[in-house]
């Protein structure tokens, strides 16, 4: 398989349960954001349920809160919301080999969230994961893995044939922020020997 490393100054991932007021960001991207990135790279809508596997690890080194002017529901005047965003972000994607060509020459601008979160491809390399005991963090894993953490229903993929888009596949996930010191429990899992981290390979095709 291959590993693509994306870098961006800023990133933001909408927290699903907050509708108005303070807008926090998820600490890691939901699968639907990965769907967006893969689609932008390939130049057409990609459905994660059609990929043989997909793994990702995300980390960021900072946080900010922005003020944004909005036109709030039912109010005649404008309002200000606080919106969190992540700073200095890196995303590692683990994908089948054929994705190399798409990430060498992405068709549309790659974004880690919103249109201001412009990203660049920092590195593309072949990688061999090693099966061993490791910690997992900086990603989302299915609840069935039994790792404790915050549970969220996240969109795996959107159906883009309708406007506006509609969620096509939603699953519960455990969200594991990137924090190496926090996780003690190791599991038997394919491991990225460079990052010394387990990579959960999602398979939604089955």
């Amino acid at each position, binding site marked *: 398989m291959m590993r693509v490393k994306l870098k961006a*100054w800023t990133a933001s991932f909408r927290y699903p349960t907050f509708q108005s007021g303070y807008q926090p960001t998820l600490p890691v991207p939901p699968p639907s954001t990965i769907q967006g990135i893969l689609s932008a790279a390939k130049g057409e809508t990609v459905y994660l349920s059609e990929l043989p596997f997909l793994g990702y690890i995300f980390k960021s080194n900072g946080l900010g809160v922005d003020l944004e002017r909005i036109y709030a529901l039912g109010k005649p005047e404008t309002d200000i919301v606080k919106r969190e965003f992540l700073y200095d972000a890196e995303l590692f994607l683990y994908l089948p080999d054929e994705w190399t060509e798409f990430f060498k020459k992405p068709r549309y601008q790659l974004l880690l969230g919103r249109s201001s979160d412009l990203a660049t491809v920092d590195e593309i390399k072949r990688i061999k994961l090693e099966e061993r005991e490791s910690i997992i963090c900086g990603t989302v894993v299915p609840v069935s893995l039994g790792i404790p953490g915050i549970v969220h229903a996240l969109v795996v993929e959107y159906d883009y044939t309708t406007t506006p888009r509609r969620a096509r596949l939603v699953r519960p996930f455990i969200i594991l922020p990137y924090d190496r010191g926090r996780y003690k429990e190791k599991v038997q899992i394919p491991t990225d020997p460079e990052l010394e981290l387990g990579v959960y390979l999602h398979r939604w095709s089955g």
Partner: protein
Amino acid sequence: MRFAVGMVLIDAPHSALNMLGIDDSLPDRNVTRVKTLRRGGYRYPYVSPQAWRYWWRKTLNEHFDWELSPLFREEKQVFTAANPLKYKDDDVFGYMRAFKRGGINITVTRISPLKNTPLISVLPERSSITMDEGYASRHEGDPTPYNQEFYSTVLKGAFSLDLEAVGRFTIIGKAGFKNLLTWNDVPKDKSGKPKKGTEEITKEIREMEHISEEFGIVRGEKEWVLPNELRKKRSAETIKAIRYLSGGAKQTQFHTDITPKFVLLMSIDAGINPFISDIVFEDRGEVKFDTEALANRLADLKDILPTKKLYVGCDDGFIRNLGWDVNKMSETLQNAEIEVEFGSVGEAIEKFVKEEIEPYYDES
């Protein structure tokens, strides 16, 4: 596919361009703070991406006579006209009108061909932010104290403009790609005529058709494309506007010139911006430029750089203050087989537009 990508540095020797207001989380509610973000143990001032976009739009309006798309309020939301044929800013900056009128879905969205990051301070808070203690005393009675923050720093920002997307309006039934309404969106009665209650929609479609004839737009099944002359002009002016950038808060008190003092520009055949990395960084209180890192990165991307040419625009005084050596930069880049065009900010932008943007539309 081709993208015009760039990085700008804005010198902000004493400024407060984008404020947070009063921070309610502090015990002292008398301080107007600037926006900052945290990285590791440090905080960095920044300007929102939306603020930068707003300045960009206003500059296009003031220097290039762009008539900006008006805002409309419908029920609970506000939209621009969502008319990218008539309003160039709808074309370049995108829009989203998710709305039903009379039970009919008239949602149109356009992904912005122009994308930009926030403007982020190179220096952290400790070496950039000052607290100004002021007194309002021109009224009768005791003077009223107030505090406000401002910074002295260099702000860096990056952008990417999708040249192919400018002036190209897709009508595919896909989120982000349904830029315009079509006759397919209009419910019909038995005789095939638009139903009652659809007058406003049909009016909008007719207006678009009318403008499209006036402009000589090529209407395909999946997209409408403006004549290349007009697309060229819109893209060229968008990039040229960087040179005249104006706006920002607190201009009365700080009078900050926000025209960039340093720009990097190039065209690339991929949706990435190679300048997003630590090319410009802080080293013991100084702003440094890592030419080596930039050269390596561009050498890596050689296959997708159509002209392998980098345009560097700089203000002499600015880089002299920073102690940057232009000749050495040039040499390092040329060793990586990247042709470098140096000039003032204005010259670099003009040259880039003339040599890289305009020919793209002439050839395609």
